[in-house]
């Protein structure tokens, strides 16, 4: 039996080869398995010359906690050596007493609540300039943005978290 099968394959070896080669080629073409370990890296420049403008480093959407808050917080790096800053855009929150802009750790448990009970580990950026509209806040010269990776709108008087933006790299 075995020898008959072998001879059947043997007799048709050229037909089988002729069928197998296109089949293998089609399979290769469809799946391109070598691409699993071959990377193609590109590095195109930005579609505009922007070296003289501040560059966004991190950005995130503001989400309301104790009060409705929305908009975007973006951290910009200035090429000229001036201070880096946080810019709020499309921003609205509720007006309130002694409201500040802070940087905090996005994984801080205090930020999951509306009212902070413990001590919020944060970096002060200044009192909120307005409860609506685009605005900038300078960052202190040495602030660890890997650690303080969230922008918080915070009412100091009542320890209320108005809104939080978790920052993601731009």
């Amino acid at each position: 039996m075995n020898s008959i099968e072998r001879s059947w394959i043997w007799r048709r070896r050229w037909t089988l080869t002729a069928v197998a080669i296109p089949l293998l080629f089609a399979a290769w073409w469809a799946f391109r398995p070598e691409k699993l370990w071959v990377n193609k890296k590109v590095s195109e420049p930005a579609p505009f010359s922007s070296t003289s403008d501040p560059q966004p480093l991190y950005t995130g959407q503001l989400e309301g906690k104790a009060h409705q808050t929305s908009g975007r917080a973006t951290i910009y790096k200035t090429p000229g050596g001036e201070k880096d800053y946080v810019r709020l855009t499309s921003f609205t929150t509720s007006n309130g007493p002694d409201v500040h802009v802070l940087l905090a750790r996005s994984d801080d448990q205090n930020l999951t609540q509306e009212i902070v009970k413990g001590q919020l580990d944060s970096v002060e950026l200044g009192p909120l300039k307005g409860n609506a509209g685009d605005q900038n806040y300078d960052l202190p010269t040495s602030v660890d943005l890997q650690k303080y990776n969230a922008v918080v709108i915070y009412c100091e008087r009542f320890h209320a978290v108005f809104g939080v933006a978790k920052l993601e790299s731009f």
Partner: protein
Amino acid sequence: MIRNIKIALALAALALAVGSLQKVHAQETKAKTLETGAFHGNVHKTSGRATVYQEEDGKLVLRLTNFKTSNGPDVHVILVAAKDAPDDANFLKSGTERVELGSLKGNEGDQNYDIPRGTDLSKFQTVSIYCERFNANFGAAPLEKF
């Protein structure tokens, strides 16, 4: 008298220098950032950021930064008329409308794609890295207003 002329000349030269500097500055093409979003995709490990810029002449450009996905056959960059897209979504089957932006230039690195004029960004809200051969979404970035 001669001193006055010298001062005047120096001032004129300075003004010229400043003027030419400003001219150079004005020649830089400025672009407005319209929308941005982060890529997600676990099956084909896609990460990075997609940002839509509008150039001065109104042209829209999609730029991918810190971008990484898995290499594959016939992978394209498309915009889809959806709020977001899950891994391996099949837009052919779901009949989701799309706008073709071109073949993926590389599976890693910063890259730009022109968006056809007249594309309605309020409708096409998600960038997808899409394998046309197997109709599978490798990764998606829902765009939000910047």
